[in-house]
């Protein structure tokens, strides 16, 4: 390999002449950046990039939006990341509920939702807590602070998810995983090391053009060596031990539960819920919410897209009835979803 010395990551990728290789970027922000930067255009044809299930909005079950709408109908103020506003529930979205008079407040952070609650003591304020390990600590911090400060008009509707059992469920969907850099900034790299022992290869990737190209160059080079591997290609952010205080915080406030991933079905112990000690902040308990089951469009092939079994454009709904303006399936609902990125950045057109 000595002649390869000094090659750039882009050159390594362009020169790849090995066998077909399936690389799954697990993280939705990776999907978005890969499309935005046009990275797919620099890859040789035998390298397939598969967009995995790491967009929390995409994998959030339809019923969750219905639950949020139910709360809004009870007069609860909904605070949410902008990502969820246009996501369709069974019949409506938060945007359409807002047009009908529901209070829906877009926030940058769960801590801002808590501040909103403190500033509006006459309103009941619920934050829609979606997201993976990266996002969970902010929600937990808000709940701990609300608890400590005795804020009684604040609650969470939780649909947070965690990655370990999702990796297990995705095993075999790809030859190499691009691991989500910011999830592992929290959880560290021990899980990635363990997965090597189970024969699963992966590269931890950052989010800049350089970091993504470098991680992909690592993936194609190491894959040719034939042994399962793990490389942390995002060391400026991810330490082996992660951010222990964040992990401890999550464990104090939340506990694992089974949960449904839209498009993938129930993955055991891959969800989070508030611990009993924080039941007063659990919107489902606080407002005696009935069990709400959402209905997704049966023609949608998102489940297969998320596992790399088909391309977005192979789905009969894609670009016809299902578009970013009026999404049907999970992968079209968020800007980070595979179908949305494929549609918006011209997956088949260019």
């Amino acid at each position, binding site marked *: 390999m000595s002649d390869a010395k000094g090659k750039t990551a*882009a050159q390594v990728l362009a020169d790849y002449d090995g066998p077909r290789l399936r690389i799954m970027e697990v993280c939705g922000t990776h999907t*978005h950046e890969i*499309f*935005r*930067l*046009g*990275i*797919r*255009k*620099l890859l040789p044809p035998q390298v397939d990039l598969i967009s995995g299930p790491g967009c*929390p*909005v995409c994998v959030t079950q339809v019923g969750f939006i219905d639950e949020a709408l139910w709360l809004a109908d009870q007069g609860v103020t909904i605070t949410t*990341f*902008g*990502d969820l*506003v*246009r996501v369709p529930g069974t019949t409506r979205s938060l*945007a359409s509920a807002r047009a009908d008079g529901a209070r829906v407040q*877009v*926030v*940058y*952070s769960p801590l*801002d939702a808590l501040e909103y609650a403190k500033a509006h003591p006459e309103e009941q304020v619920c934050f829609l807590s*979606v*997201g993976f390990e*990266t*996002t969970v600590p902010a929600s937990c911090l808000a709940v701990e602070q609300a608890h400590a400060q005795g804020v009684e008009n604040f609650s969470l509707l939780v649909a947070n998810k965690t990655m370990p059992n999702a990796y297990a469920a995705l095993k075999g969907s790809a030859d190499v995983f691009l691991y989500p850099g910011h999830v592992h900034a929290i959880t560290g790299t021990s899980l990635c090391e363990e997965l090597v022992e189970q024969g699963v290869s992966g590269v931890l990737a950052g989010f800049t*053009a350089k970091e993504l*190209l470098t991680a992909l160059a690592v993936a194609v080079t190491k894959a040719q060596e034939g042994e399962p591997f793990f490389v942390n290609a995002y060391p400026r952010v991810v330490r082996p031990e992660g951010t222990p205080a964040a992990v401890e915080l999550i464990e104090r406030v939340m506990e694992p539960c089974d949960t449904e991933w839209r498009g993938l079905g129930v993955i055991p112990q891959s969800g989070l819920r508030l611990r009993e000690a924080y039941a007063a902040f659990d919107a489902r308990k606080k407002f005696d919410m009935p069990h709400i089951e959402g209905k997704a469009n049966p023609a949608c092939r998102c489940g297969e897209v998320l596992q790399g079994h088909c391309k977005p454009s192979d789905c009969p709904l894609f670009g016809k009835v299902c578009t*970013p*303006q009026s999404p049907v399936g999970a992968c079209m609902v968020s*800007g*980070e979803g595979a179908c949305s990125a494929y549609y*918006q*950045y*011209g997956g088949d*057109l*260019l």
Partner: protein
Amino acid sequence: MTEVSGKVTLAMGAGGKQTAKLIDEVFAARFASPLLTADDAAVLEPPRGRMAMSTDGFIVSPSFFPGGNIGKLSICGTVNDLACMGARPMYLTCGFVIEEGYPLDKLAQIAQAMADTAASCGVTLVAGDTKVAGKGQVDGVFITTTGVGEIVEGAAPAGAKARPGDAIIVTGDVGRHGCTILLARDDFGIEADVTSDCAPLWDSVEAMLDVTNDIHVIRDATRGGVGTVLYEIASQSGVGVRLDAASVPVDPAVGGVCRMLGLEPLYLACEGRLVVIAPKEQAPALVEALRGCPNSGGAAIIGEVTDDRPGWVVMRTEIGAETLLPQPGGELLPRIC
């Protein structure tokens, strides 16, 4: 000028003495000119040659923001719409809908900004109308302006005239007005030293027309920003657009706010920026002329018109690959998780 204080009342909109007082003290005192009508309509000399006419409504919350207020905006918007047709703005009319209880001193500031901005670009306010709406029926002040301009002989820019090979020019950094308003609403706790680009641009257009009349398209990139305008032009002209991401000027703080919220600066509104499409060989001289104008010092060539992929805007990204600029998608929502 009379100092005003107190608040706008419903009586001030009822047509009697109090209405006359409001108009005299707040508006007429500031808009004073021989052409400003005291009757039912202004009586004016017509333009020579062809004329352009445009109308636009303005609602902005908050109505005062760094770099301007709704008054300045309402003049710039219509002046710029006329300028985009190659028309020297001549006359403007303005209609106000004011919420009961609105502070009179703020209304006076808005009127003053309108008068100053109009004077700065040589346009005369010739007629106006004032209505007062009950508390909660409008948000502060809404303004509609209508303008008439005289088209410079030989100039005929239009959205359907972009041709493959043309250069695409933007007259300064993009997204500042949208970013300013987003920050002024303070929904996301972000602070940045960003000022709206709100400005009248007739002098910029005049400077270009002094170089050549052979300008194919001029558009002001207001709502939806430069990205939306480029998609509109691509569709109207049946051409493709290729942008070079690295040459799109973005103020660093606007870039920082956008990265924080996962937004694309090309989709944030501008209120003092034009997208200009002209034959490639004219572009360097046009950019030079623009850079000599006070509001277009940051003019730059950002891309070209192509004949492939009609209707689409393609971006050359920082790594040299090509990808689509996502199509405009309505309300801008921060992307966090």
